[in-house]
């Protein structure tokens, strides 16, 4: 087996790789050119459509696709998979929909104590 090279060498290689990384995906017109959401939404963050007759109205096709995709709570990643929109665009549009009261963004796991969260996850895994 090949031995792992020293971290110093690896670090230089990683820096080089980062320096050469391709540019971020260009802003999408569907988001009005914006690429950053005000609140960071991790790919695992759950979103639910607000079940109210007016909430699905007056939305752009992309917003409506997102609204429809999270009728039952779905993660940002699942909404991306369901709509075919890139995660960056989903984040921005979910941020807009949340501000407008059309969808609810569920609490981030970081709002819970880390130890309590890990214990709950471990308990859950032990029951499977």
């Amino acid at each position: 087996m090949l031995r792992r090279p020293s971290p110093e060498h690896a670090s230089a290689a990683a820096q080089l790789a980062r320096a050469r990384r391709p540019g971020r995906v260009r802003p999408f017109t569907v988001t009005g050119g914006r690429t950053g959401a005000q609140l960071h939404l991790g790919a695992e963050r759950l979103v639910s459509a607000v079940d109210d007759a007016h909430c699905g109205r007056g939305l752009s096709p992309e917003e409506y696709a997102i609204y429809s995709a999270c009728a039952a709570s779905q993660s940002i990643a699942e909404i991306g998979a369901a709509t075919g929109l890139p995660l960056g665009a989903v984040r921005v549009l979910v941020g807009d929909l949340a501000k407008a009261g059309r969808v609810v963004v569920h609490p981030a796991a970081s709002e819970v104590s880390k130890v309590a969260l890990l214990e709950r996850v471990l308990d859950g895994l032990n029951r499977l």
Partner: protein
Amino acid sequence: MVSIASDQAVPTSATTLEISTKLVIAGGFGVGKTTLVSAVSDIPVLGTEAQMTEASVGIDELGLIPEKTSTTVAMDFGRLALEPGLLLYLFGAPGQDRFWFMWDDLVRGAIGAIVLADTRRLEASFPAINYFEQRGDVPFLVAVNRFDGRLTHPLDQVREALDLDPAIPLADCDARERADVLAVLRVVIRHALNAELNS
């Protein structure tokens, strides 16, 4: 009830608040990340998985890995419901070096990471191990995937070859087997819990 920022929609009575968290599955190209995720996921693995073209086969030295016909070129993921209101997502990190820029975003907020390794091409796991070692803020372990159910090298030899810190757990699993993968998930969560309690 957890409070949320005032500029967000207020949950209606119909919405039950849920918490979700994630683990990242990293490792080299073709090491079995998607297999591992699908072994435990409640849902079919989702994401962008493109069939490799002949051109990229050459670039990625696909010939070194027998019977591999496609790989993850974006990221794929699965989900486990652990209890009502608590979901665990498993995200497979893109294996090729040219997708490294996606990692920081994916790893942000992760409660832990699994670096999956193939002893036939151990060097494919070096970048992922280096990445988590250098970050230092995401507890991780290395899991050797027993391809065809066999462990080709003893784990102590693997640990030596990886120059792995004694504090980093090293496990082996058959990434196709749900029970094996669940055991690895428990080890990484216990490791994260210990790290958190000792911090």
